[in-house]
């Protein structure tokens, strides 16, 4: 029987701290240079390099057991990183286990923010680059294409992508449950700090119609408004012009209430049929909490948003087992299809996709 195998080695956020990942990360030029170097490595039949802020991974088809080590060695030399230290953080998975890892990464099951979809695009780019450079062959082409299909299946058959897990995105998602689309939603940001800015940006990224910034320091409001492509409003007009807005994000450091109940009631009297979504991200709170009882007014404070984010995170976690089962099934089926090609002369043994399957495997902490 041949010693050919499919492997993945690398370092991920699970066991590699950020300061180490910084030293391991590859930029576009570095990736290209390393790819050229690996292409010349004897015994490495196919490979793809995946480099993101949370992982550096090498997927390959090797003719012998020493090749994966050589790939790791070449990478460490390029990064001036001690191979012994790299071994402490390294994942090393083989055959069906490597395929299962590939599907899990593509599906967002292995991501730091569980279920995030950005990794899917990053993997597609990495694969496309490897394919264009002629680094992939029949095994990895099939493996990646099938992994992308399986990842879509994991996403549709589980709830790992439902519910936002960051406070800013939770606020945007909540706005969706009130207004549907945000294309005609007018947003007022009170406070020009980092938290409010992050939330305002999240709204803008989801196509909010307009953004207005008001801060106790007008120049700071104008500065932020310019940076965000928004308009500025004198802080003292916040109450009189409240009725013009659908969503109000409050994130000031004011020690007292800046939106009193009377102001909200007056605004609602001018726009009774249109809902008003108030997001109070300040501590101490900026908005009079009694307005929560008003018809068509929906008030959420920092605790509410954080609790929802935590619930969503827990719900996603609960779905991971289901996702991993699907990924395992797909990986097993895929391994049956490619095992013969990987092993060269004939079909090799079917390795169960367990974390201990790799020859020198270091299981990732989950």
């Amino acid at each position, binding site marked *: 029987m041949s010693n050919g195998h499919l492997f993945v080695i690398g370092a991920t956020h699970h066991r590699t701290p950020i300061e180490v990942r910084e030293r391991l990360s590859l930029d576009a030029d570095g990736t290209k240079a390393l790819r050229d170097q690996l292409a010349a490595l004897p015994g490495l039949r196919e490979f793809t390099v995946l480099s993101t802020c949370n992982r550096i991974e090498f997927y390959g088809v090797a003719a012998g057991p020493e090749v994966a080590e050589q790939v790791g060695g070449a990478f460490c030399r390029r990064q001036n990183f001690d191979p012994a230290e790299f071994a402490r953080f390294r994942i090393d998975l083989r055959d069906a286990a490597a395929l299962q890892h590939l599907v899990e990464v593509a599906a967002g099951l292995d991501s730091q923010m569980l279920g995030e979809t950005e990794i899917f695009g990053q993997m597609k780019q990495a694969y496309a680059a490897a394919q264009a450079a002629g680094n992939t062959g029949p095994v990895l082409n099939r493996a990646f294409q099938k992994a992308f299909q399986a990842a879509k299946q994991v996403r549709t058959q589980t*709830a790992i992508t*439902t*519910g936002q897990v960051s406070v800013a995105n939770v606020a945007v998602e*909540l706005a*969706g*449950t*009130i*207004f*549907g689309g945000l294309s005609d939603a007018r947003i007022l940001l009170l406070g020009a700090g980092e938290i409010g800015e992050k939330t305002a940006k999240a709204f803008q990224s989801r196509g909010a119609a307009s953004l207005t910034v008001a801060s106790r320091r007008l120049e700071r409001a104008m500065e932020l408004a310019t940076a965000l492509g928004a308009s500025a409003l004198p802080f003292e007009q916040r109450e009189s012009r409240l009725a013009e807005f659908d969503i109000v994000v409050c994130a000031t450091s004011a020690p007292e209430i800046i939106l009193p109940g009377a102001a909200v009631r007056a605004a609602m009297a001018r726009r*009774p*049929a*249109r*809902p008003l979504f108030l997001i109070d991200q300040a501590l101490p709170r900026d908005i009079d909490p009694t307005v*929560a009882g008003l*018809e*068509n007014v*929906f008030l*959420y404070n920092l605790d*509410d948003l954080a*609790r*929802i984010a935590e*619930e*969503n995170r827990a*719900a996603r976690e609960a779905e991971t087992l289901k996702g991993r089962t699907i990924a395992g099934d797909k990986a097993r089926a895929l391994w049956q299809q490619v095992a013969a090609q990987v092993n060269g002369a004939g079909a090799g043994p079917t390795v169960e996709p367990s974390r201990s399957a790799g020859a020198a495997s270091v299981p990732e902490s989950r």
Partner: protein
Amino acid sequence: MTLPFTDRTWLWLAAGLYLAGFIQGSIALFKRGRPAGGATYALILLGYLAQLAGLGLRGRAVGSCPLGNAFELYQFTAWSAITLYLVVGATFRLSLLGYFTACLASTVTLVSLLFPSWDAGPRVRIFGHNPWIELHAALAVFSYGVFALLALTSLMFLLRHFSLKSKRLGGWFSFLPSIRDLDHMGVRLLAAGAAILGFAVAVGAVHWARPETVVNLEKVVVTVAVAGAAFLLLLLRLRGVLLARRFAVACLILYAAALLSLVTVEPGRGRVPARPAPAAR
């Protein structure tokens, strides 16, 4: 072509399919945590076709639109609601509305089937050979179907309102449409229902004005009252007097009143001449 079952067999089949849609939707929601979507829609569509066959057979047998007794009225109302759902649900991808529609349709059709007395006794040919009065009746009952869908969207509005106010947004609450979309849909459905019922009353009024016509006074009063209530609700909503939660509750009450009024508008009840017959003058 002759269909192999009797009209009631088809209607039982339709009720069963609606019930299956409801049960399937419940399993999807409470076990898998997501609406069944396409499967519920398919079951409702099959039920709709079976109901159409049953009502078609009944219509052919009686030679008119099947609105001759309480059983037929409830069946026609459910069928009207489903007709609208199949259009609205597909257009707006309201998967949860399908679940609620299946629940309502299975309840109304099963209840009407379980009381044989509603479909027993001599059946009055209410329309004679006047197509206008048949149009009046069909439109009026169809508007009740619109109110049924209005009641469902109002119920969904109240659930969404509760979820937002109580800050419980997970689980199957996450499949509800946005509160503004539900509110807009409620206003549109109310406007459509009021317009259809208003037109039906206008068509009927032309007929009632004829000296030879015999009308059910109670039915006229109840129908006009339901139409008046619908227009009043719409006016109050558009003027901003009745909003959000209170508007949704009022729509539910309107539907309940419309449903109960079907008992009084049952053909054959208390038919009295609209005005004295010419010979008696």
